[in-house]
């Protein structure tokens, strides 16, 4: 099972700070995950925004980055600073 984490406004949008799920067949990279999840949750493109960065196992990555059910995958909206 992959662990997904959501930060900032995405946490409110997804209704949780994290969840675990089995990645559907065909969702093998970050770009595919953005598309599938955005569609599945009816988010209207919020996860497709370029300003939303992806982190896989604590490393910021660029799309498309290979992912599997063993990964922790985070969605980061633009940081607001402290």
């Amino acid at each position, binding site marked *: 099972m992959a662990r997904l*984490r959501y*930060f*900032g*406004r995405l*946490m*409110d949008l997804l209704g949780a700070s994290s969840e675990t799920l089995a990645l559907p067949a065909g969702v093998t990279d970050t770009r595919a995950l953005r598309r599938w999840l955005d569609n599945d949750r009816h988010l209207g493109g919020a996860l497709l925004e370029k300003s939303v960065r992806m*982190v896989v196992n*604590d490393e*910021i990555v660029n799309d498309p980055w290979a992912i599997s059910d063993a990964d922790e995958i*985070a969605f*980061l*909206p*633009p*940081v*607001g*600073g*402290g």
Partner: protein
Amino acid sequence: MISLIDHPFDAADALRDFETRAAGAGAIASFTGLVRGTGKMGIVKTLHLQAFDPLTERGIIAAIGEAKMRWPLSDQTVIHRTGDLVPGEPIVFVATASAHRRAALEAVDYLMDYLKTEAVFWKKETTATGAHWIEPRPEDYTDRNRWSKTGE
């Protein structure tokens, strides 16, 4: 030293501790940031700060490393709150020690610009009209760009 803490801290105590630790330096500069009582959406009731470890801490460590390349610092500390805060509470404390004042002052300013724009935090302000996530202001980026080596 870096501390991300989810409970209130006393900036005066933090400065005293730093002065003890940095004894022997010719100059110590510090900055304390407080939660403002008025935000874009009106009177602020609470401010929620969310961090993402280890990314938040790693980013601050890198910014300190950059500051130490630019200025001869003998010591430095960054304390940053997470969790729920109310107006007037300290949210961030930065202190640096160096042989001379300019290095200490500029390094504090540099670290604050990093913390205000690039540090991995998300802020949610609660006002009378509800809760809103805050994104950086354009002038925060301008402040940060002052330090750009390329001038871009």
